[in-house]
């Protein structure tokens, strides 16, 4: 597929101020996002993985402008428009006026809280449509039923409340609501984490087929590595507010370059009973985002850290084959991993 960029993040930062003292001045800040620069391609599914506190949810919410970034640009290339728009600087009202608001939508993690418990399914799905265009009640209902069918439900489900459904079905309704306004870009924030294992498979397959059918671009945020491996084309690994590695899925798993990714992947519990993989146990805990380590943020826990790692922050560089890594020793890492394994 042509590699057309749909969204580009340029040095995006989000700091949450910590107020202190009598006069409530800003004394410190939680550096949830500390300079992210990635380009998302149209039609792909980009997975973002990382542990809690790494900033993946903050990134996803920043992109769809659920909160205001502290600095940086978010360049959105809407379909049919030549010029990209920096949506980081637009207010919600401006986004609406420019007709951009409905092109960026989100599916939330918990289907129980992501829908108003007092609204009927029909109204939940119809609401975003009503905001965008004026349809007659009949046309509106037809469209809602169309959307329900797309997600595997039917018109019997129109006049019910969300709590009457199972978790998987609620998530389908949430997806129907998200695609109701014909968006271009969809953020999926852990959409299957609250669901059962077998239902997860249904939802993942649904999302995959919808992406093909409707030509959507996904940003799939999760902590579950096997799920992201299944559904994503490319994966970005985040640690403490920065992207440490960004590559095509196969390349990331087979050709891991960054030590953090390597430790992360080794920790996945696998159902392949015969496979014996070395489990890399990282020392200590994730440092606080209030005071991230100097230089490379991972250096405090990295088994291969050298002097330069604590001084200079590595940049995200392409090591060839569209595989970006932020590590001073990226050319060495493959052999380092191998030696570590054989050392035992």
């Amino acid at each position: 597929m042509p590699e057309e960029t749909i969204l580009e993040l340029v040095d995006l930062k989000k700091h949450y101020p910590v107020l202190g003292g009598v006069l409530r001045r800003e004394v410190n800040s939680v550096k949830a996002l500390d300079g992210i620069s990635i380009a998302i391609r149209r039609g792909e599914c980009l997975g973002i993985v990382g542990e809690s506190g790494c900033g993946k949810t903050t990134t996803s919410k920043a992109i769809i402008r659920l909160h205001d970034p502290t600095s940086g640009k978010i360049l959105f290339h809407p379909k049919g428009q030549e010029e990209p728009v920096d949506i980081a600087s637009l207010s919600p009202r401006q986004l609406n006026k420019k007709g951009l608001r409905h092109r960026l939508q989100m599916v939330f993690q918990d289907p129980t809280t992501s829908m108003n418990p007092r609204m009927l399914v029909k109204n939940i799905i119809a609401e975003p449509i009503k905001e965008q265009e004026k349809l007659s009640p009949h046309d509106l209902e037809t469209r809602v039923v169309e959307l329900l069918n797309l997600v595997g439900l039917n018109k019997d489900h129109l006049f019910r409340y969300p709590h009457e459904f199972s978790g998987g079905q609620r998530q389908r309704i949430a997806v129907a609501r998200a695609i109701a306004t014909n968006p271009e870009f969809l953020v999926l924030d852990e959409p299957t984490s609250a669901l059962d294992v077998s239902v997860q498979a249904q939802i993942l397959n649904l999302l995959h087929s919808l992406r093909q059918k409707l030509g959507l671009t996904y940003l799939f945020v999760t902590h579950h590595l096997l799920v992201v491996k299944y559904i994503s084309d490319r994966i970005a690994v985040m640690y403490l507010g920065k992207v440490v590695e960004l590559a095509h899925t196969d390349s990331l798993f087979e050709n891991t370059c960054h030590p953090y990714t390597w430790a992360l992947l080794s920790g996945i519990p696998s159902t392949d009973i015969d496979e014996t993989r070395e489990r890399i146990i990282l020392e200590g805990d994730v440092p606080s985002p209030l005071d991230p380590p100097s230089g490379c943020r991972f250096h405090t826990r990295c088994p291969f850290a050298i002097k330069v790692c604590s001084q200079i922050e590595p940049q995200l560089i392409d090591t060839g084959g569209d595989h970006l890594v932020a590590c001073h020793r990226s050319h060495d890492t493959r052999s380092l991993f191998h030696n570590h394994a054989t050392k035992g």
Partner: protein
Amino acid sequence: MAKIIEAIDLTTHFYTYEGVVKALDKVCISVEHGTTFGLVGESGCGKSVTVRSMMRIIQEPGKIEGGKVLFFAREGENEKTEELLSKSEAWMQGLRGDRISMIFQEPNAALNPIMRVGDQVAESFTFHRKRSMSKKILKDLASPDTRVFPGTRGLQRALYTIASETPNALLLKISRKVPLLKRWEKRMKLEAFRRATEIIGNLGIAHPEEVARSYPHNLSGGMKQRIVIAIALACKPDLLIADEATSNLDVTVQAQILDLLKELKKTEISSILMITHDLGVVAETCDRVGVMYAGTLCEEADVRELFTDPKHPYTVALLASVPRFHQEGELKTIEGMVPNLVHPPSGCRFHPRCAHVMERCKTEVPELMTVGENHKVACHLYDSKGETDA
């Protein structure tokens, strides 16, 4: 091999507005001494209810309707079989935390936010081990090296002598209310705290004294879960039950905790009953696995057998719907939905969704039968002949 706990025909119902939820239907589970048993299934399958029924912590509107739970207590050389469902609540309180411990999913909910972490670990001691601690203190008091508030040695010795036999004697209960007198227990509390710090150190936590003096909010998620484990292991139980203990943790922290449990298995705990929905965790940590669906046990086998040769259609479908490291092709989904347990399907509860359903499945409930080496299935496909039917 010797068993540590066994549930036979356990049946539990919940009486709700919607009707009677038949949460468990004649579930039979046995855990062998020295092994890790994994209980897997999706939400609503009854794995938590099973374990809570076994520990008798089911509350209104739930009620254990039938069955037996046999606990094979070990006291030194002797083994004593106890039937848990017939015991009094007081007896069960003595059992919980002492011989069988349980840890849960959410460490934040398990820890008291206003108590120091070390005190919470010590609480387990002060509840279960009053006698042995009193005896130890008596020995200390006998030695003239021990510093005692002048004039109170005799009094303390008297009180601890009573405590070493009947820790809950009326006299002691009264003494706990009297302002100055109640300080006699301080010695025991300090001893308990000291032991708590020791246990925390045994779990591989650096600077155990500092950690014991901190509060839950000072600790990270992984540390909190470790403290929860410390509380559970304080009295060296025979069985540890872990109810989705790592589900809420990050991958790397989960790896640390699972590693820790593996280490502890060698030294502190003998048997673990692990409940999880993550098949990968089961594959890595368990010796034997039981698969539950809609309140019934479908299959039970050694872990290797289960993953290489699953027999029950549900197990097969479940394994096919989980993304694997080396995934080939699409994930296979299971048609249909988990049934409503107020009106569970007749016969085999999985029959509406089974790819191999037969007429018999709709009416007859399949018995759990042994197929092959230590491999039990509850499915009509594997009838008494022990081979695949048709």
